[in-house]
């Protein structure tokens, strides 16, 4: 087995010159490389590649599960935030209200306090949230109103919504909408009905002077 092949014996004298040089180089490369390994029977057939396919399926399944878990987490966080926000007395209409106005009771409702959070305009709508406490309960079919104050005047057309109070000591949180565009200096008050139901009544809550 250790006998090295003799180039001249292999080739004879038929090849000469450049061709002989070429063959000699191939001969020397064969000697340098040594024999290829004998292939074991297990390797005679190409592997099925089922394992990689299974791995791919597993990876795909893993990706789907991760995606599902991420989605569930986002949904859970969303609802948790929503619930917490609701439990805390619904402090804001949106994550960042455009304007927060503190209201204080007038002599007609000296214990009343309120916060009005006005969201960014959505078109010509101004969503807002009122949190109020300390207003007394009114007779049936009599309501508190939220009105716009523009240029220092309570605008009769600026009704944003009405509400009733059942428990004066409990914080009441309500959503309203002002169906008009916001202007600089706009503010809002809470009134109780006057003699005519078509116009603002007496102010019970007004903005705290800055």
């Amino acid at each position, binding site marked *: 087995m250790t006998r090295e092949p003799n180039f001249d014996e292999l080739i004879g004298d038929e090849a000469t010159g450049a061709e002989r040089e070429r*063959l000699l180089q*191939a001969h020397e490369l064969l000697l340098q490389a040594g024999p290829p390994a004998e292939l074991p029977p297990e390797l005679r057939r*190409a592997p099925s590649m089922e394992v990689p396919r299974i791995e791919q399926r597993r990876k795909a399944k893993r990706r789907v599960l991760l995606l599902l878990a991420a989605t569930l987490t986002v949904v859970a966080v969303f609802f948790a935030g929503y619930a917490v926000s609701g439990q805390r007395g619904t402090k804001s209409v949106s994550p960042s209200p455009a304007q927060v106005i503190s209201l204080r009771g007038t002599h007609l409702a000296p214990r009343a306090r309120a916060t009005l959070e006005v969201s960014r305009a959505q078109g010509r709508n101004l969503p807002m949230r009122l949190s109020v406490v300390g207003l007394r309960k009114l007779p049936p079919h009599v309501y508190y109103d939220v009105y716009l104050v523009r240029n220092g005047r309570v605008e009769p057309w600026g009704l944003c919504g009405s509400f009733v109070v059942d428990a004066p000591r409990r914080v009441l949180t309500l959503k309203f909408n002002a169906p008009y565009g916001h202007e600089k200096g706009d503010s809002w008050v809470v009134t109780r009905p006057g003699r005519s139901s078509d116009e603002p009544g007496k102010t019970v809550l007004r903005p705290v002077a800055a």
Partner: protein
Amino acid sequence: MRKNKGDMELALEVPQPRLRAVPADAATPPVDPSEVSDADLLARVGEHDREAFEILYGRYVRPVFSLALRRLGDRGHAEDAVQEAFAAIWRSASTYRPERGAAGGWLYTVARNAIVDRLRRNGPASDSELPDLASSEAGPAEQAEDSYVSWRVHRALEELPPREREVIELAYWSGLSQSEVADYLGLPLGTVKTRTRSGLARLADQLEGETL
């Protein structure tokens, strides 16, 4: 002198890939699988073409196994490394870019990486397990060069017609003289010499540019 085939240490029967019969278009003659380039096969393997993978496997399994055995020094580990190397080829063939180099070089790199990964997973090995690395004769660069030359030569051998490959392997690694090869194969001495010369010429063509 005639030897029993069971006594031979060389693998003379190289598995040929089985190809599925594909209905040939009347206008386009069927393509001989041996004429399909490695680069084309890799492109098809990149699309998970099983048939192309089998052809590529047939061409490269012995070079990959030889390289693995040379580096790992253990047949079991080498077999595992071959499986891992071809799994890596199957997975990453789509990343091969012909403009960046020959397919053979790319395959060598993927196979070598799989073997090195296997070597690392096996942990520190004894000298007996790493005959190449333990050698004090050649540094890493020379070893790498030797490995690549062996890879190229073994790959080129796979391209020879079986009857030429047979006489070359017997002549170089069985220890038989030309007369003994002729006797073993039951062929005239002249035929053995012709096939040997023809085989060497083909190898020279394929290994052109390879230096010692």
